[in-house]
């Protein structure tokens, strides 16, 4: 039975501040009682990952990692969420690794394959940017070089 997972676009939609606050309170309350249910931890972590702020995403991924470690039954889903979290943060390497592990387990999962696609696209895009940068730097360098040589000859 394929796991129910959200599309990556869902991760871009963030919760309102109040909602996130409610989730945070729930999580902290349970933490104070020293019995944190998996669901509330996940709720908070997912809310954090959806937020646009980098610190939140980092914290969210950290919580997801804790869930991964603690609950073997939930690991498969966590693979996806971790991949998504890393994808949002920009750690495409990790994202790809988690996602590929998930695809090994569940080859038919649509969300996983779409996430893989997204990761590849992003990596390529950044690669092009990088190439453009290097090229631009090289171009500027050549121009300056040519100018200096001309000046030197004169």
């Amino acid at each position: 039975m394929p796991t129910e997972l959200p599309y990556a676009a869902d991760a871009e939609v963030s919760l309102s501040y109040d909602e996130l606050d409610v989730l945070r309170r729930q999580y902290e309350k349970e933490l104070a009682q020293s019995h944190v249910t998996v669901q509330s931890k996940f709720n908070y972590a997912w809310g954090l990952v959806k937020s646009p702020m980098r610190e939140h995403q980092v914290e969210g991924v950290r919580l997801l990692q804790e869930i991964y470690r603690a609950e073997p039954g939930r690991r498969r889903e966590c693979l996806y969420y971790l991949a998504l979290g890393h994808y949002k943060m920009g750690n495409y390497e990790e994202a790809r690794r988690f996602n590929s592990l998930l695809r090994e387990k569940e080859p038919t999962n649509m969300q996983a394959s779409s996430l893989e696609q997204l990761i590849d696209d992003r990596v390529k895009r950044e690669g092009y940017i990088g190439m453009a940068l290097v090229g631009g730097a090289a171009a500027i360098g050549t121009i300056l070089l040519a100018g200096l040589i001309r000046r030197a000859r004169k």
Partner: protein
Amino acid sequence: MASSSTKKKREPRVALDNLAEGPSRSSSGTLDVVSKAILAPFTHRKHDSNKIFSDLAPAIMTPRMMNAAATVSSKSRPSLGPSGTSRVDFATLGRAPSRFTLGSRRITSRDLQIVEATEELLHEEVPEPEGVAQNVSLLRGFNATIPSSEKSRTRRRQTRSVETPRLSLKKLSLGARGMLGEDDEHEGESVASEEDMVVVGRSETRGRKLKAKRRGRQSLSAGKVLGKDELVRQTHEIERDKENLHVRRTLISAEIAEITHKIEALDAIRNKLEQDLLKLQEDELELDDELEGVKERLELEESTSRPPKSPTQQAHLPQSSRRRKGPAFLPSEHDELPPGVAFMSLSGHTAPITALDFSEPYGTLVSASQEDSQPRVWDLLTGEEIGRLRGHRGSVKCIQVEDQVCLTGGEDTTVRLWDLRKVDEDEEWETSEILSLSDVAEEDESVAEDGPKVQRDREPDGKAIRQSGTSEPERSGACTRVLEGHSKAVSALYFEEDCLVTGAADKTMRQWDLQTGQCVMTMDILWAISHPPTVGPGGPIPNYLFSGAAASAGTFAVPTPPFADGTWDMYRDFVGAVQFWGYALMSGSGDGAVRMWDMRTGQPHRTLLGHTGPVTCLQFDELHAISGSLDKSIRIWDLRTGGIFETLKYDHAVTALQFDTRKIVAATGENGIKIYNRTSMQHSTLLTNGHTRPVEKLRYMDRYLVSGGRDSVVKIWAL
């Protein structure tokens, strides 16, 4: 433009790159090849290539660019380091500007933590989801429990809110609670004014209200029309909400189940810890006993090292073996014996064992059986019979052994004192007698039997020999003294140093001095029964004693309840057991009462009632007295209050017991020996290699237990 210029640049650089080609990368794709080719100098000969660049164009390689290159590689390294390969490719370069533009962002420890954990996590197993995880995915749970799931409900409630004239409900409720609501009144009014202006349908409702006066009030819901779409939407929302509720319920049930498991596990741990605590208590009691034993030993060794004051003081250990609490001296091999196993069996008797006692573990054992007037003496180290005690004319019913001194009481109403060192001599004489039997023809009995010093048993075939007569004065025999005085069978005895107390079927107890061999005092139990120390009815026997007490008026004979093998006897021992300490004497008798006597006056000062059958065995220490009886129970009495501390019930009559601070060992009419742990209140049974018929008598010292049963075998156990 950028790509063409890069291509122009590629040729001269490729020459450099070939030198600088690093380890082959496994990745493929044009992007990666290009990035490898161009960035190789950055990674490997960073310093060299930078130097080349700086020579060529000092203006280009500004510190800024250098920083960019450096920071790019350093920034990427922490995040990608653990993955093993430092892939500085275009992608990371591409990220550099975005990072710069976003401002200085510090890499926190959290980032590192995350990334480092990835490696470890990826290697962990990912099992199939099952149970809750399969039924309710995390996402569904999320959607079911986030606050926005409540939104639809509140929205629906709002759609149902009906515009009504301001009722100032809040003021009413506050007034009901007894709070002042003046401010709210103000607010209510001002808001009301606004509401009046905003609400559109107000006039309508007012109008309707007027009409209603004539037709009766219409319900609130009739005034509102929601529309079909709205209603359909609401039905969908409600269904979704119900699903959410179902999801939440599943989640909570799973949590409850998990917590129940945890509680059970913790309970199990707690029980185990409590048991450990009990075990420690037991060990503490054992150590207390050991301490006492060591103290005694200290005194003894000190007294032996000092010059002796009188010969008698040195002769024996300060306390009799019955009261010694400390551990005994055992051969080292005894520790290796598995506990609870009978490792030695002494067979030789032909009838059920009636009494036994031993001097010390691996010392000397004396045991007697029914229909045999000669108790046998065994050496416990070898398991061999050393000899027999000849002298009694009826079966021996009670024995006590202290070092080399042995006292036996028998059915022939006499009590005999034996020196166990002399038992070997008797054997020698016995064998020599057999040889000369043929010589005996006409010679008959008439061997001097009386006289306290010499006893020679008269065999039915008349083994009285001329030799015995001639050597009479030289042979002393093992028996050193005969005590006569009772008129019926002696069934219980207890001695300590020079004082002996015996109980007999004539319902009296006698106190003897062993030095002189004279009876010092006689205590009449029958008289004590009819004259109880507490004020009560005179002559007739009090009716709180069981009916068998009526039998105590005449000859006492009570049938025992059947043992485990179905057999039963007639129990005739009116005095089942005696023990004394100093001047305090305790007796257990056939009327079921345990009496405490003062030996100075010979009067009983306390009677412990509770048993409904004759008391067969008894022992007491400073705190408790424990008695067993034919009523299949063992009672533990508290000596300070005189009340029953505990009663242990068994399936058959109890015939023997012994206890210490930690356990009670009892013979309860079964093949196995019952051990009751007093700290943990657990029962256990010794069965391995045990008796084949019910156990009758037992005695233990430290971890060495000797038991005798109706199968005529004496077994020795390691506890």
